[in-house]
């Protein structure tokens, strides 16, 4: 019988096969799926996030851990659904209008899913109303916007403005990220959050969902 500790360690070292195997073994025992998620998988990803922030590990290691987490969740998710365990939340993601660069946005998507969020990924070149409509359709609390170009990052302001115009700011929070962005820029356009990297995005979104 695998232990929660073994599962956590498998995720942290990015071993997808071991994580899947340990999860399968655990669900056959007397620990409930929600406990497996909350006591092994999410803490393991939190450790990964912390080690990344401390520069003890780097992006490829984080991605391997996220892959192992995904393998474990493939076993666990049907059982969580069966038990009616709520997801961490829904987040709409996209690269803003005029910009086709989506690597950063894709990374955030991977990390959010690893942290138990449902992600509605709108892809790239997304206009303001498309972000908002998708968020309303999916009952999402947060819209995450990405841009790589200084010429397209101004589109983020258009999304924030449009949320205000539609009277939705109490319902929809915004977070922005991308190579040319800064905390100051996020504040200037009225975004609710800024994340310099994908692991920070998960933390900021967790804070925004709690608000």
């Amino acid at each position, binding site marked *: 019988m695998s232990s929660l500790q073994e599962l956590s360690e498998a995720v942290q070292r990015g071993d997808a096969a071991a994580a899947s195997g340990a999860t399968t073994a655990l669900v056959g025992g007397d620990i409930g799926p929600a406990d497996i998620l909350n006591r092994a998988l999410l803490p393991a990803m939190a450790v990964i996030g912390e080690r990344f922030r401390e520069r003890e590990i*780097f*992006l*490829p*290691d984080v991605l391997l851990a996220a892959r192992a987490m995904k393998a474990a969740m493939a076993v666990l998710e049907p059982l969580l659904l069966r038990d009616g365990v709520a997801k961490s939340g829904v987040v709409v993601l996209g690269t803003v*209008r005029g*910009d086709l660069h989506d690597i950063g946005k894709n*990374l955030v*998507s991977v990390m959010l899913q690893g942290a138990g969020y449902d992600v509605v990924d709108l892809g790239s070149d997304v206009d303001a109303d498309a972000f908002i409509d998708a968020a309303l359709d999916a009952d999402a609390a947060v819209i995450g916007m990405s841009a790589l170009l*200084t010429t397209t990052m101004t589109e983020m302001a258009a999304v924030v403005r449009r949320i205000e115009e539609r009277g939705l700011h109490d319902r929809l929070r915004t977070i922005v990220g991308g*190579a040319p962005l800064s905390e100051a820029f996020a504040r200037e356009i009225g975004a609710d959050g800024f994340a310099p990297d994908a692991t920070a995005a998960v933390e900021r979104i967790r804070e925004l969902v709690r608000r």
Partner: protein
Amino acid sequence: MRRVIQFAVGEVLPTEEEVLMRTGVPAGVEPSAAVGALLHEACSRIRRLARPRGMFQRVSVKDFALVLRGAGRNAAETPLDEIVPRAEALALFVGTIGQEVVDDIAALFRDGDPAVAVMLDAYASEMANAVATDLASRFAGEIRDGACVLPYSPGYCGWHVSGQRALFAALDPHEIGVTLKESCLMTPLKSVSGVLVSGDATVHRFRPRWTFCEECVGRDCVPRMRSVR
């Protein structure tokens, strides 16, 4: 003079260290076996799928002034305004690694393995840069021994991305299959474009003092200047 070059993948294949650095891994950090396996998988994909090609064409200072002006949306002053008058020769260039790799990255993110997708994306970005570097080197070879050539691109250092339209109108890179979208971004996405500036090393020196420098997070102008010392 118009040169079109089809590269062998091996000519522009980045090193593993360059790829890891692109993903934020500091130089000298030894990858784990698992990260090594990701690198290997991404490398075999890019070797199979990349179609690197590029072109350049000489342009006079007078004609380039029109390209640089573009739609008139540049910053009031840019480094190129200082650099171009000192240049020995100029050439417009476009390079790409092809659409196949871009499609594979998207498919990996959508349905497959995002970890491999990120590593492949890093390989692709580095390879596109290597195409630009190689084109610069070939242009230098046509000017004279010891010519220092650096590429400068719309979207950076005050040259507004809308300048792509004038650049593409002047160069027309149809032979290598690169087109421009309404947003002035290129298809395939992993493409590079701009002007190759030739001269001695001092031609490329400038003090990064403009307003846009304050917002720049890349700050790669300094190592670029150092690279042609």
